[in-house]
């Protein structure tokens, strides 16, 4: 079991470092969004169905994380790899996955987004050397070196993000396993309440801040009421 856990940790690290490249350095196909990252981690660990709900909640929480202009927002990709990784590893190797465990995984993994932002800034600062090397390559008419510089940038991002993911997964999983309270106790119930009410409500609130027009907010309110009434009418709700 220990061997398999180590292999899974390595596989999640590799997947996370690859997906982190998609966030800005390469492609930007949105494979780096929590909505995709967490189900991919779930697919890797063989627990895809358990990953979907968590993916939606984490996506909402970091919905406003946009790389507009030269701004460097919190790194939602690294956070979602760690949150999804520790929650789903807990589901596979320890004691399943429920709202309380998901809430604890989010609370443990959320700071990774801020460490990830710090790392992004560091990498951009370090990349000043690449601009200087490009100048030198052109001065020396060594154009083959110029064509290799983006690869150097990719490798730096891959290694740095991979190291952060590996470290965060180990620390995060240890924290999750040791901090998770016994089911049925008051702390467990309280974490379940955080997972059921606070995380979705905060996620929806964050997502609503991305709507900059009053009319879009009004449409959100109207569609909420109509859908809820519709669900009541269909008898799905009490």
């Amino acid at each position: 079991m220990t061997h398999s856990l180590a292999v899974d940790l390595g596989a999640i690290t590799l997947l996370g470092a690859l997906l982190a490249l998609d966030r800005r350095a390469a492609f930007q196909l949105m494979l780096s969004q929590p909505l995709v990252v967490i189900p991919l981690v779930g697919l890797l660990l063989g627990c895809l169905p358990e990953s979907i709900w968590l993916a939606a909640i984490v996506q909402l929480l970091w919905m406003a994380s946009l790389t507009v202009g030269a701004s460097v927002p919190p790194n939602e990709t690294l956070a979602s790899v760690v949150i999804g990784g520790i929650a789903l590893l807990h589901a596979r190797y320890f004691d399943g996955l429920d709202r309380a465990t998901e809430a604890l995984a989010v609370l443990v993994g959320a700071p990774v987004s801020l460490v990830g932002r710090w790392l992004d800034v560091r990498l951009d600062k370090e990349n000043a050397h690449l601009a200087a090397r490009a100048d030198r390559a052109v001065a020396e008419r060594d154009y083959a070196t110029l064509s290799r510089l983006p690869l150097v940038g990719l490798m730096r991002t891959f290694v740095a993000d991979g190291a952060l993911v590996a470290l965060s997964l180990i620390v995060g999983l240890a924290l999750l396993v040791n901090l998770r309270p016994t089911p049925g106790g008051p702390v467990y119930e309280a974490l379940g309440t955080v997972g059921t009410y606070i995380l979705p409500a905060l996620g929806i609130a964050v997502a609503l801040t991305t709507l900059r027009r009053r009319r879009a907010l009004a449409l959100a309110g109207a569609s909420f009421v109509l859908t809820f009434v519709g669900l009541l009418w269909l008898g799905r709700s009490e």
Partner: protein
Amino acid sequence: MSAQIDRGVLARILWRSFFFQAANNYERMQNVGFAYCIQPALERLYTGDDLQRAYERHLDFFNSHAYMTDALLGAVVKLEEDVAAGRTSPEQVRAFKATMMGPLAAIGDSFFWASLKPFAAALAVAGIFSGVPWAPIVFLLLYNLFHLGLRAYGLSAGYASGERVFEKICRIDLVQFSDRSHYLAGICLGVASATLLDTTLHGPFALGQGLEFVVLVGLVLILFQSLKRKLDMPWLLYGFSALTLSFVVGLNTFFPLFR
């Protein structure tokens, strides 16, 4: 298409543009990426000192939206062709890049980051809460239909129209698309909230007697107002979680709420 810049060269530029931000740096932002992307065209058009000077002008400061840069790359390749043929000056290329990177970035930020991404994500989240497990695939397909389509179109339209590329991009009317996807994002978020509430009513942590409605809607409104007042998401996450833990544990100790 000239004899020198054929479809193969444009295809290589398109492929390289996916790595446009790989060497992003604070000094000159995406300058290395721009030079890397346009390299196949420069090597086809110039040799010797001319090639060196061409590289030098593309290592200037450059900062734009990654997806919209394909349109600019196409137009700059066209301009470089004119420079190589002696029809325009190299300074015109520099001036054109400096003038266009800002407006194209503004269009890209407003359409992709502020409208399409929230809409596609909100649609997928609403799908997940409604029990559609393959909703993330819809998110990827919807987003990349516009993303990849605009990249390929931008490069081709940029090369075909040169300095008039901005008119071509404006003709697509991305601003109107932006508005519509913004409103659709609002609708999807409303649907997502309602289905989430419906799920909570039937979950293991349901409070009963319709309290879920009051709690969830009240929380969303309080948190939304807090975020609008510039309180960060992590602060609210930890603050409200600590409050909930204290409240529920305290309440449970004196008045057992959960069975």
